[in-house]
């Protein structure tokens, strides 16, 4: 339930061009056809009492508290389930209605423990409130009827919320929230009348199907389902609207605060990306922000074997700046660089790249998107003209065919997955292209029409085969291609794609996908109505990542599935601000707005604004920085909010590179793996401690608002300012809004963006400028950003990472719902309840062949290294393919991944590593043992305080 009260119109909004006018308590009101009488009354300013209705859910009509009288109709219909009709005359107050409502309320109260004064939702309980509204004065049935509160025990198994059946009024809002909003179907209402009760299957919440999204808790009008944080800390006194700092969905939240302490995060129903829904991470896993491991004082040391010394901000900044200056003087201007973070705000990212370009005087800036979505930038820019997804999330509501490629939205983008599942339950068809049987393939009331279970590394062969079928069977959209795309490029591509080598029958052996399945899927995509493609890192993190992105764009263009709601090419971004960090000029070849550094006009613009010359040469990308560090030409690095030592492939190469740096400055919340190699540690600020903006996967810019003061005294952007100043390049900003104003001045796609407009509109999807003053939900409507769409030849080239007798299996990597990326945040929350170690998932056949049983330790060896994990045996894998997550540093998943990378962007090929797996009695590899020792050694070098 929302505690900082928000109006609730009782039933969902209806969209209809037809308007209906009626009269409620003598007031005329006009609403869209299909609206409930209850909602129309709310529009007219009349609040009808209610319990089982709430505007996020379809009306159910069970509590009978919302009865009204309608002229010319008998009886007392429920206003939540009655739809408006023209000329209707409704009365919401009368003596008989008041009597009926009091009677209903009496029944509820007689079955409810009246411990209001000690109840966690006291003062914020709908039952309490409605008892007041209906004027309940007596309870004639006594208080000990067939009471719920005698029978059941509290279920406290979920780490974030309690279930106290004694307080349940059986309104089924929770059941409906789980079905309609989340789409998990974990709850049921069993029995009838006083006997009815809510159950999470035949087990407790924690062991049930529940994914802990919290939708039921939010929907519950009583204290039956209540957040533990509210039980422990009490009700909030105010709220601040902000944006989730986890995944690329970018859910809007109300941070509910008591004093300066967050007591609950409630998804914002006005949030344009999430419409009031969230997942377990955003809603519940924010405790890391005040975790005892937070480092809140700057620290320095001259060697990584020395103890850390806590110093003032001034001293730390001065030391870092003098080191960078010394290194540049000795080894040259290009010997230092910076890495921006997709977890930081746009403004912070912009400042770091500005510092690199203006104060370091080179283009050695890169961002973690290098290791995830850099191929998206390259591929979509080449084909469509803009490095971003084409649609808003709501577009999926208009899709008839949904294609999910190399993405696992239910785990990695849960709120969007719920929206997608809603559309699938309403009849859209689903095609999944993934080596694994992800949840979407078959889950409650959702089943894929086609699951193309390809071998890892053969994406391009599959996308080509799909396009081949479209073109050779004449299913392409001739008109679209002729009017919207470059003809010569299309002709070349058409000749290429029509060649029999791209036919599904020819690629079947390589991809492992039966030709008939490909043909059927291609026909469905091309002819099934609006078809939308959603893809994730299973597309980009390959040696042909960029080629695959272009292949996807080719397929969308050739079928005309671009430029209107319901279609498009949609990258699902991993981290919250991947899109934003790329937009802000974090790449070593591009200034903000994706403009190449070799363009003299663009350089002149920035040079004039920043008062410095801009280097015309591209800088180093992250993997090039590592190589240059080992080579000796790169010696100093400023890393904001990134953990390259854990997240980048071939860990041993990365750590060797980090060890060879003379000055590594890490700015982060925690001593992450990278910070163990650092010389300067600048304490970071969490998203709750600063102002700024994030840009989600649909190009939506949303505000991040300061909820509590920065624990370390400086927000991240302030630390960057201080560093720039110490480097001799002062920047004059007193608030992040001024940074955004500068971005808007210098970036054509952001011209219309300002904090004032964000406050006014809630969020804005760029491009936002004179042509689109309120932003752009769907791109490329009349023409492509590059003018004409460009077809690109996408020849399939097998990865060099081949399976052999020595390495007969393919390892692929991914993530799960409860943990986030390198896990620095989620590992410091109760989310570990669900996932406390990374495991190796393998098919029963591969396990049996090797004598591996569930839970056994097994050794995974690749050409790059080896590590040891426990086994999980699962039919979701295909034989020959094994899988692991990378949320725990000690798992060493990236010790085994290789340095193979996308040909265009060097995005690592995380998704394909040839390995051998064998059972072992040892719980740790040599690397893991060394890692453990090194971590202990580094822990011992931290200053001794109470918190360490």
């Amino acid at each position, binding site marked *: 339930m929302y505690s900082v009260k928000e109006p609730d119109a009782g039933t969902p909004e209806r969209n209809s061009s037809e308007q209906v006018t009626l009269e409620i308590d003598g007031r005329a009101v006009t609403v869209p056809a299909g609206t409930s009488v209850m909602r129309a009354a709310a529009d007219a300013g009349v609040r009808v009492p209610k319990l089982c209705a709430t505007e996020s859910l379809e009306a159910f009509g069970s509590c009978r508290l919302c009865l009204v009288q309608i002229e010319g109709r008998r009886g007392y219909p429920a206003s939540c389930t009655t739809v408006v009709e023209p000329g209707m005359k409704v009365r919401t107050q009368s003596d008989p209605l008041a009597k009926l409502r009091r009677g209903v309320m009496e029944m509820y109260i007689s079955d409810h423990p009246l411990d209001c004064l000690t109840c966690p939702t006291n003062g914020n309980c709908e039952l309490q409130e409605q008892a007041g509204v209906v004027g309940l004065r007596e309870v004639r049935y006594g208080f000990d009827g067939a009471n719920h509160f005698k029978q059941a025990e509290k279920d406290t198994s979920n780490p974030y919320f309690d279930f106290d059946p004694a307080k349940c009024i059986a309104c089924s809002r929770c059941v409906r929230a789980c079905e309609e909003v989340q789409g998990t179907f974990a709850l049921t209402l069993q029995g009838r009348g006083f006997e009815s009760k809510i159950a999470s299957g035949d087990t407790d919440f924690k062991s049930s199907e529940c994914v802990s999204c919290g939708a039921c808790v939010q929907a519950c009008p009583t204290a039956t389902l209540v957040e533990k944080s509210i039980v422990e800390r009490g009700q909030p006194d105010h709220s601040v609207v902000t944006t989730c700092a986890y995944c690329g969905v970018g859910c809007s939240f109300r941070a509910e605060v008591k004093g300066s302490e967050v007591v609950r995060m409630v998804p914002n129903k006005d949030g344009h990306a999430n419409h009031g829904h969230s997942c377990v991470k955003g809603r519940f896993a924010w405790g890391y922000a005040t975790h005892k491991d937070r480092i809140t004082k700057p620290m320095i040391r001259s060697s990584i074997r020395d103890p850390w010394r806590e110093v003032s901000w001034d001293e730390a900044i001065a030391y870092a700046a003098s080191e960078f200056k010394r290194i540049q003087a000795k080894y*040259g201007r*290009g010997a230092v660089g910076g890495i921006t973070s997709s977890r930081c705000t746009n403004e912070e990212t912009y400042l770091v790249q500005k510092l690199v370009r203006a104060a370091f005087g080179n*283009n*050695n800036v890169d961002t973690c998107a290098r290791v995830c979505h850099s191929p998206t930038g390259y591929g979509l820019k080449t084909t469509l003209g803009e490095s971003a997804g084409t649609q808003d999330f709501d577009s999926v509501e208009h899709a008839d065919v949904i294609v999910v490629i190399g993405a696992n939205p239910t785990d990695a983008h849960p709120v969007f997955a719920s929206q997608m599942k809603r559309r699938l339950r309403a009849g859209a068809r689903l095609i999944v292209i993934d080596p694994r049987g992800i949840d979407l393939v078959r889950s409650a009331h959702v089943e894929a029409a086609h699951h193309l279970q390809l071998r890892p590394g053969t994406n391009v062969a599959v996308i080509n085969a799909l396009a081949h079928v479209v073109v050779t069977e004449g299913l392409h959209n001739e008109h679209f291609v002729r009017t919207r795309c470059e003809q010569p490029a299309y002709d*070349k591509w058409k*000749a*290429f794609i029509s060649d029999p080598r791209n036919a599904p029958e020819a690629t079947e052996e390589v991809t492992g996908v039966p030709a008939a399945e490909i043909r059927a899927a291609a026909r469905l995509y091309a002819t099934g109505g609006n078809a939308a493609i959603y893809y994730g890192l299973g597309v980009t993190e390959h*040696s042909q990542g960029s*080629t695959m992105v272009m292949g996807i764009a080719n397929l969308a263009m050739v079928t005309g599935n671009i430029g209107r709601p319901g279609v498009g090419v949609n990258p699902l971004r991993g981290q919250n601000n991947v899109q934003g960090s790329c937009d802000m000029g974090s790449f*070593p*070849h591009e200034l903000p707005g994706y403009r*190449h550094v*070799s363009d003299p006009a663009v350089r002149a613009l920035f040079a004039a604004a920043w008062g410095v010359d801009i280097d015309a*040469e*591209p*800088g*180093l*990308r992250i993997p*090039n920085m590592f*190589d*240059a560090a*080992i*080579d000796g*030409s790169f010696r100093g690095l400023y890393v904001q909010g990134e953990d390259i030592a854990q997240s980048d492939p071939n860990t041993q190469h990365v750590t060797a590179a980090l060890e060879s740096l003379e000055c590594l400055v890490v700015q982060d919340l925690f001593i992450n793996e990278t910070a163990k190699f650092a010389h300067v540690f600048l304490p970071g600020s969490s998203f709750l401690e600063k102002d700024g903006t994030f840009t989600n996967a649909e190009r939506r810019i949303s505000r991040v608002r300061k909820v509590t003061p920065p624990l370390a005294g400086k927000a991240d952007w302030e630390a960057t300012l201080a560093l720039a100043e110490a480097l001799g390049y002062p920047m004059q900003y007193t608030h992040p809004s001024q940074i955004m104003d500068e971005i808007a001045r210098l970036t054509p796609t952001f011209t219309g963006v300002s904090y004032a407009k964000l406050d006014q509109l809630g969020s804005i999807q760029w491009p936002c400028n004179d042509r689109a003053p309120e932003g752009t939900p769907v791109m490329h409507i009349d023409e492509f950003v590059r003018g004409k769409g460009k077809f690109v*030849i*996408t*020849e399939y*080239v097998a990865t060099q990472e081949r399976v052999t007798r020595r390495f007969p299996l393919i390892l692929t990597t991914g993530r799960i719902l409860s943990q986030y990326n390198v896990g620095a945040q989620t590992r410091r929350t109760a989310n570990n309840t669900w996932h406390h170690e990374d495991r190796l998932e393998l098919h029963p056949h591969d396990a049996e062949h090797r004598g591996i049983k569930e839970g056994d330790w097994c050794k995974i060896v690749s050409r790059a290294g080896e590590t040891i994990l426990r086994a999980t045996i699962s039919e979701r894998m295909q034989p020959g393919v094994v899988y692991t997550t990378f949320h725990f540093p000690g798992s060493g998943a990236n010790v085994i991944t290789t*340095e193979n990378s996308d*040909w*265009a*962007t*060097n995005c690592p090929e995380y998704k394909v590593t040839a390995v051998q797996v064998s059972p072992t009695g040892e719980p740790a590899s040599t690397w893991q043992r060394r890692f453990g020792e090194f971590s202990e050694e580094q822990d011992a070098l931290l200053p001794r305080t109470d918190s360490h």
Partner: protein
Amino acid sequence: MDAHKLVRMANEIATFFESDPDPAAVSDGIAGHIRRFWDPRMRRALLLHIDEHAGEGCRPAVLAAIAANRKSLTPPAA
């Protein structure tokens, strides 16, 4: 910079562009990509490797592209 890695990267870039039936497009594609995305020290190291080791390990398309675009690929003196 590790020349083997650079050669491998250049070859992978070439493999992509080689699928274009137009030889001029292949050459421009390879050279343009390297020019747009490689830091000067990487280009310098690749050129040096090609000069000193007679282009060892490089696909012919890489050598052709570099020969035809030598000037634009040569970084300004550091």
